[in-house]
Each structure stands twice: as C-alpha cells, then as structure tokens.
C-alpha cells in the first residue's frame, strides 16, 4: 500500500482547487477550503479522476475519512455546535493544516 502521508488526528486543509473541463472529481465543492481532522485511513484506491476516463493503470492513492465541524463548513449552521460531517477525501486533495504533525521539519 502507498505510504499514507497523514495520520489519524492530523488537522488537514482541503485544497481550494476548481479545475474546469471534463473531470470526475470526488471532492465535493462544499468541503474545499475547509479544515478537518483525519478520522481514519481507508486504504489506497485507484484515482477516480483517471479511472473515469479509462486510465486503469493509474496509481493507488491513500483515501481518508476526514471529520469537520459543521459550524466550520457552513457559516449559518443552526444545529448543535458539536455536529460533524465526515467526507472521504483522496490524499492529493489534502494539505497539512496549521499545527499538523506533518508540518514539523
């Protein structure tokens, strides 16, 4: 399995990239630019951005479940401030967030 760059509990930032054209991206718009924490490492899977266009020889990329606080995701979130949302995100869409262990030199 491809070595995972992040560990459970690491704070991560979802990249704010908005590529155009024919794409098949599994990172929802609403979560781009948000900071969450790694909940678990799901394994490594073939990149859906390649698979969708017939590139089956693509590399496997670590997939994570990332937990976000709803109040961080939606400015006007009205529920319990402890409410959360968890999203599966591939590693190439994640960057270390401030305070992340992977930030250390």
């Amino acid at each position, binding site marked *: 399995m491809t070595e995972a760059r992040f560990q459970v509990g690491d704070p991560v930032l979802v990249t704010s990239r908005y590529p155009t054209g024919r794409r098949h991206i*599994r*990172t*929802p718009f*609403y*979560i781009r630019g948000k900071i969450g924490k790694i909940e678990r490492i*799901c*394994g490594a*899977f073939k990149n*859906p951005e390649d698979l969708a266009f017939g590139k089956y020889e693509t590399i496997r990329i670590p*997939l994570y*479940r990332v937990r976000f606080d*709803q109040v961080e995701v*939606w400015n006007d*979130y*009205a*529920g*319990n401030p*402890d*409410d*959360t*949302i*968890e*999203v*599966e*995100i*591939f590693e190439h869409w994640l960057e270390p967030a401030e305070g992340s262990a992977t930030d250390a030199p």
Partner: protein
Amino acid sequence: MPHEQHEHAHDHSHAPIQADERQGYYQRLADATRNLLIEKGVFTAGDMRAIIEKIDGRSPALGARIVARAWTDPPFRKRLLARGKQTMLEEMDIDPVVADIVVVENTPDVHNVVVCTLCSCYPVFILGRPPDWYKSYAYRSRVVRNPRGVLQDFGTTIDPAREVRVHDSTADMRYLVIPMRPDGTDGWPEDKLAELVTRDTMVGTAEVSIAN
C-alpha cells in the same frame, strides 16, 4: 391514425401495448454501451441479467440480521465497527461486494446519517436498492447542510444535546448505521430483533421503535 382497439388470436381486445415515451439520451447511451460490450465479448446478456437478479435479490433483511447480531453479541459488534466487510464476510457469510463497509453506531450521544452528495452510492449488497428519496437532489443537497431539519421532515427528532454526524459517501467506502436498540427488548432473540430493523434506520433517517 393509431388503432384504439385490435383483435387477435385470443378472446379479448385491448389497446396496443407500446412504449408510451421516447427513451432519453442517457437511457439510449446506456443501451448502446451495453450492446457494444456484449458485441465485443466483455460480458454476455446472460451475465448482465444474472447480476441484476443478484442485486434485486438483496434486501434490507440482510442488514437487519447484521444489526441484530451486533445488538446481542458485543465482541461481534466491536469487530464489525473495526472491520466492517471482513466481519460480515467471515462471520455471517454476507458479501457486501464493495471495497469496505464503514459501520457506525448510534449512541445516546451521537446520531449518524448517511448520504452521497455526488451521486447515489449505497450499500446495495446489504440493503438492496436505494429508495428514490436517497437519490433525490433535495435529500442530497439538504442533509449535509441542515441534517436536523431533514430528519425532522422524516418524522425523526434528534435531541438537541446529541451530536448529529453526517457521512458523505464520496469515494470507495459504503456505510451501515447500527441504530440504537430500543428499550423493552431485553432477552429478545436475534430474529425477532431483526424484524424491528428497517431500511431507513440503517441509513440513519429513522430510529428503531417497538411500535413500528
């Protein structure tokens, strides 16, 4: 002018049986793709029929058996939460087919609800085909943003003090919610408990009740 009635070799007449609407673009694309794959020998029409029959043979009863077992067998529940697919496969001979099943459990502190905002990913091999609402834009767009409001629309009120945790099934994982076991079911056998566990309770839009 189409004929309204016609006679043929049996003893009654009826309107001609015909498709009442033209196939849409994606239906025609899907049919053409299927025909090409069959022509190229990738699979046969029989293979396709068999897989559809296999999917249609799955129902929420499978998931309900898993939940009932989890309620009555704490070590099993622990293994299920840690390794969903492997535990279902090895201990109950239920194959969820997908890469893995993330099993999450409702507790007095947390209520879980599952969605796929990007399309309609759903654990069909343990719950059967998804309900139409699960695939609707309304559910998919609203439940991430206002989960308590959507649950309320389903008649499910979550105590404001409990955390609501939404799971967006965006990639290779599929999800199963273990609902809370209702009070008053002490000593019930697994098969009787399984009858209480409905589809929606395993997606997280409802809670299990004895009154169901």
